[in-house]
């Protein structure tokens, strides 16, 4: 059971009672890359938020396990402490909160007293990592996501992941709205992460998968994974669309 994220027969509804996930099961091991594809409204974002513990959803059945520990009822911060990370599709702006201070606070949450990183060392670390993502402005001086362009927001999520060093990360559409160059920088950062991580990448496009080379591709439609396969499945989707897969299942 070591180093696995297991999603077991997960049924999820909104607080209002509308069922969104209707029995999703997935097993993610460290160093694996899983891609989840599927049409809009199929439940991809809900799945990512539920794994992180969003309070706006109700798990009616099933569970989520990390290294054998049931995390289904844990609050988001407790999940983060088990080193789960969610890269948001729409990162939230928090005015007046310095990006670097916030991230250092978060990074130090997981550390023992004598391991905590100093503000100066952390700033240097951010600058070094940010340079690899080609941020044009000094991100350590900016407020958390405030006034960031669409591309900067996506890059900043990947930057946060590279500094928080999770053992499992769910990236919700890290590629949507990015230009070709930004996509390259992001993909490169993800493939060159200097720590072992199990990745779940939610995407609409084959493009990012060309760089990331997923081990598994899953198709999530109407709250269920209707098909799983290797990287070739993503190419098939790109070519034929979801309808054909849905009809052939």
């Amino acid at each position, binding site marked *: 059971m070591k180093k696995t994220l297991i999603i077991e027969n997960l049924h999820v509804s909104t607080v209002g009672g509308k069922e969104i996930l209707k029995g999703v099961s997935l097993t993610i091991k460290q160093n694996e890359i899983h891609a989840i594809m599927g049409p809009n409204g199929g439940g991809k974002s809900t799945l990512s938020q539920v794994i992180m513990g*969003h309070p706006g959803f109700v798990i009616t059945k099933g569970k989520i396990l990390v290294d054998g520990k049931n995390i289904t009822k844990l609050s988001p*911060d407790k999940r*983060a402490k088990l080193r789960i990370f969610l890269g*948001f599709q729409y*990162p*939230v702006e928090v005015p*007046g*909160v310095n990006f670097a201070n916030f*991230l250092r*606070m978060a990074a130090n949450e997981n550390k023992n007293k004598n391991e905590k990183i100093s503000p100066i060392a952390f700033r240097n670390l951010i600058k070094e990592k940010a340079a690899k993502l080609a941020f044009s402005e000094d991100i350590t001086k900016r407020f958390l996501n405030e006034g960031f362009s669409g591309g900067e927001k996506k890059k900043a999520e990947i930057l946060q992941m590279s500094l928080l060093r999770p053992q499992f990360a769910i990236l919700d559409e890290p590629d949507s709205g990015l230009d070709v160059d930004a996509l390259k920088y992001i993909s490169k950062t993800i493939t060159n992460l200097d720590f072992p991580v199990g990745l779940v990448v939610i995407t609409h496009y084959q493009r990012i998968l060309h760089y990331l080379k997923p081990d598994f591709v899953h198709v999530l439609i109407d709250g269920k994974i209707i098909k799983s396969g290797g990287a070739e499945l993503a190419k098939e989707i790109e070519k034929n669309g979801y309808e054909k897969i849905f009809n052939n299942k």
Partner: protein
Amino acid sequence: MDMKKSSTINNQYTYGFHKPEKSSFKTPLGINEKVVEAIFSYKNEPLWMREFRLKALKIFKQKKMPSFGPDLSELNFDKLCFYNSPSNNKFRKWSDVPKDILDTYNKIGVPEAEKKFLAGVEAQYDSEVIYSNLKNHWEKLGVIFTDMDTAVKKYPELVKEYLGTLVSVDDNKFSALNSAVWSGGSFIYVPKGVSVPIPLQAYFRINAKAVGQFERTIIVAEEGSFVHYIEGCSAPIYTNDSLHAAVVEVFVKKGARVRYTSIQNWSGSVYNLVTKRMLIEENGIGEWVDGNLGSKVNMKYPAMILKGKGARGELLSLAYAGKNQYQDTGGKAIHLAPNTTSTLISKSVSKNGGRASYRGLVKIAKGAKGSSSHVRCDALLLDDKSRSDTYPVNDVQEQDVILGHEASVSKVGEQQLFYLMSRGLDEIQATSLIVNGFIEPIVKELPLEYAVELNRLINLSMEGAIA
């Protein structure tokens, strides 16, 4: 005889301790001619001050309570002590200050702060200023920084020239009350061209139960001068209410600049009803940085009267309303001359049933051509029990002006909390970050030690709010 911390009433208020009540002279409860006469004779004041006080008392009796804002009906003048002097003496050395009073200021950290980053300090304990000191360097340049009682005796002509000219005795019921029973407060005079780059600070402390503090402050900044004055306030936690009704008059002459920073952290049993006004002449700059964290009921609207061409006024107002608190704050800008500008920025945070209101007035008089005013008020609500209102009034009598007004009310959102918590911060840390981020534009204007203290206070009260 130890200090007591009233942890049962409110475990977050750090300055809630009190010392045994001490007085060398105290008037009986209530207010009447006898009380006013007693203050006058005890202080051994010149005769003109007797007239000033007695006239003010008459006006106080005639004036009605404010017709707007918080309910003041529980404020009982008959149950308050209007004058309580802790000591017959004023001191220039902390080592001479009576021990229990010194203990109080040590606990708040005033002597320490003076050594590190202040040009002068004044400390008022109940009705009287107990300590006052201005570093030699500034004294030699002709700067005056003393308590108002000393100023009345030492510089009567200067005091007469300014006292009550900006906030008249009959301005409102509490300006009249203050004029009748005033005691203590600061008198600052900065000569032409002199700049005091490090702040002067006054510290106001109410110690005795159900006592009123009525300090009177005048700041005169002559042509081209600069001064930054900071005041801090705190009090013990009592179940009997206290009253703080100050009057502050600030005169900013041609090309001068005055910054007045106030951090009010009275305990939850204090009514804070204060009249503050600045008169800004040609090309002068007047700034209010007004932090309101404490008190039960707070009514404070610092005003800027832009009298000379090109005068500038800026108000940064912060209000924090917790349980059983009503912060009615805001500001006023009166444009009387051409090309004057004002900025009023207000931020309020309400939690645990607290109520915060912005009450503002912008008046642009006929002839104040080319003037502009910008008003922005933002409110943050931490729960459904809390409340925020805005009451802005604009009175514009000139065509050629720019007037901008923006207002927003937001709640700490589920998405923001989820986002921060997903990075490993617990709910308290996440909420504190959001609140501190919200008030950041004002906090960054505070001297560093105050900014740190403010963030610490907010974090402390968040713990109480959520846990």
